[in-house]
């Protein structure tokens, strides 16, 4: 098990980060080339003003009609994404690993706050699972891949929570946690998690088209 941990914190970490960075750049370049080929004229109406206007409305809770439609989903979605991004970056245990292996250190979240935020992510995942099962419309558009990425996030945060609270074997739980996290990083460019790289561009594209062509709001 020590060897698996060694592999997970060593070569597999760099493999995961490499696949995430190179894969994301490749997907962005491929998407740009495809958009240019299929919808060349869009380049003429892309605008910073309409792009940012759309992004600002959709990044604000209840800032768009879409967010007003289902308040519960909106609240859960915002809490989920904020915690999902902040906890892995600012968790003390993660910063300690950066410090140990690379000598990089920066301020961490208080343990209690990080713990609460992790629980929030786990509860949000359960809500999303329930929604995918119970809402016929959502169920209809749910594919195997949606389940995979949702379970991956849930497993990563559950194993992280259990490691922190030292429930079960620390070595096994921590190793599983690291492997799940790496799988999640690798999945970003190639699954629906790619909305992490495309999200802002999608809004910029739609915002510009609505603002410059349709002369309408997109929020």
């Amino acid at each position, binding site marked *: 098990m*020590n*060897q698996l*941990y*060694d592999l997970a914190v060593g070569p597999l970490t760099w493999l995961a980060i490499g696949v995430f960075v190179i894969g994301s750049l490749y997907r962005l370049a491929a998407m740009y080339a495809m958009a240019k080929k299929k919808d060349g004229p869009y380049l003429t109406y892309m605008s910073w003003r309409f792009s940012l206007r759309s992004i600002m409305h959709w990044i604000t809770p209840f800032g768009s009609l879409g967010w007003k439609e289902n308040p519960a989903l909106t609240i859960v979605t915002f809490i989920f994404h904020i915690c999902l991004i902040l906890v892995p970056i600012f968790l*003390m*245990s993660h910063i*300690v690993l950066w*410090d*140990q292996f690379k*000598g990089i*250190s920066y301020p961490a979240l208080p*343990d209690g706050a990080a713990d609460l935020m992790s629980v929030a992510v786990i509860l949000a995942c359960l809500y999303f699972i329930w929604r995918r099962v119970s809402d016929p419309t959502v169920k209809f558009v749910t594919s195997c891949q949606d389940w995979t990425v949702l379970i991956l996030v849930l497993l990563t945060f559950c194993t992280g929570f259990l*490691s*922190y*609270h*030292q429930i079960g074997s*620390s*070595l096994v*739980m*921590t*190793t599983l946690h690291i492997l799940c996290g790496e799988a999640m990083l690798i999945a970003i460019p190639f699954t629906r998690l790619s909305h992490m790289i495309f999200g802002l561009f999608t809004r910029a594209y739609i915002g510009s088209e609505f603002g410059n062509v349709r002369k309408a709001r997109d929020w």
Partner: protein
Amino acid sequence: MLKKSLMLLAVAAVSLCFFGPAAFSQEDMKNVPNEVFGAPRRPAAVFPHDAHNEKAQIEDCAVCHHGGKDGKMDKEDMTAGTACVECHPVAGAPGQTSLMRAFHKQCVGCHLERKAGPVACGQCHVNK
């Protein structure tokens, strides 16, 4: 005068026999001391000094108690008796590895290298 000196020497020799082992042995050591961190966010790392070294077959103190100069570690220079924090300040500085990083690198680094011993956070920083 000579008699007095001999007497003093004898007292010193006897007290060394009695108190010497206690002064040099780390038999009572169960954790890596962490008081120097002020308000540590994790429990002190489990470390029964003598049992650990017996199990790991470490006889040379300098394996852990190393010396160093100008930011370079010197494994030949034995520094047992000098507090780690004297060379590894709590807040690291250029050319000086921080105390926490020194501990983590020393313990986990060796355990990973030897493929034995605890490596995950909760294995050493055991919650009470």
